[in-house]
């Protein structure tokens, strides 16, 4: 799987025009990940310079929250398992709060990283693409909030 195919198949950037998708893919840096590697750690402070958006190219990444569980006691709850084309780190790009969840590699593969400073610099080099990317990030957050809302209502019996 190539990075551009992962981006094209992603809910985040899947509807970008091909030319913009190609430009965007060149801003990502790819790297291999090994099983058990912690890519994001819950509670960590977000560093404005070191922060990034991650997209899975190959393998799988679990989004996990550690703490009190709804059923009682405490432990690790897996909220989602992400595969090729799925993104994480979106909320931290816009909200400078400690990480709400950990992201742990559960199946080795490769990820693509878009540094926040690269994204911020895009506004000077390609404003049209910068606006498309920001729009895509906002849409992802809206989808996440809708899912969260649905899960919350189900739990509350509403």
């Amino acid at each position, binding site marked *: 799987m190539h990075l551009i195919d992962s981006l094209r198949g992603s809910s985040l950037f899947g509807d970008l025009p091909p030319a913009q998708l190609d430009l965007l893919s060149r801003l990502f840096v790819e790297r291999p990940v090994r099983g058990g590697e912690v890519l994001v750690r819950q509670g960590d402070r977000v560093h404005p310079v070191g922060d990034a958006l991650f997209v899975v190219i190959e393998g799988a990444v679990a989004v996990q*929250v550690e*703490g*009190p*569980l*709804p059923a*009682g006691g*405490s432990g690790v709850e897996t909220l989602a398992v992400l595969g090729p084309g799925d993104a994480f780190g*979106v*909320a*931290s*790009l*816009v*909200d400078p*709060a400690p990480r*709400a*969840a950990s992201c742990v590699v559960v199946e080795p593969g490769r990820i693509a990283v878009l540094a926040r400073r690269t994204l911020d610099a895009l*506004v000077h080099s390609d*404003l*049209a693409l*910068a*606006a*498309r990317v*920001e*729009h895509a*990030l*906002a*849409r992802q*957050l*809206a*989808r*996440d*909030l*809708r899912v*969260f*809302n649905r899960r*919350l*209502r189900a739990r*509350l*019996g*509403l």
Partner: protein
Amino acid sequence: MDPTPSPALAALGVELTPDERLCLQGHLRRASFAADEVLCREGEARAGLCVVEQGELRVEVGGVPLAHVGPGAWVGEVALLDPGPASATVRAAVDSTVLELDAAALERLVAQEPHIARAVVRALSSTLARRLRQASQHGAEEGEGEGGGGGDEPPRTARSWLSRLFGGRRGA
């Protein structure tokens, strides 16, 4: 077009100059609602973002008021960015005027005025991210239980939890 931008756009256009806010305003549609009138009903399709210009909106879920949204604050950003059924009913608490932005207008803004569109979606994103964080934090707090209360207060819990998802940004 108005000579000066509406003060209601201060928070949404926080990264924009007055001239840019005026341009943004040109892409918005002004609408008025009488007290108690419903802007959108839970479960029904909703047009998009409503920035309160004058008055106050009330956000209700299952008939329970969860949030009040005043001038400069907005509702409907999820409907704008991820079209689907409204997750709450929005009603005018008093006679109110709103500035509306629907998905088609946002798409035009992204294509024609990328700088303005980028600033607007960033403002929306930071509200969405903050709500996601607050809602997930609340989930953890609830699990801890409240000392002595037995923790068995579903309506109050449901209300306070949900209100974090709908806690409209307070206006200026």
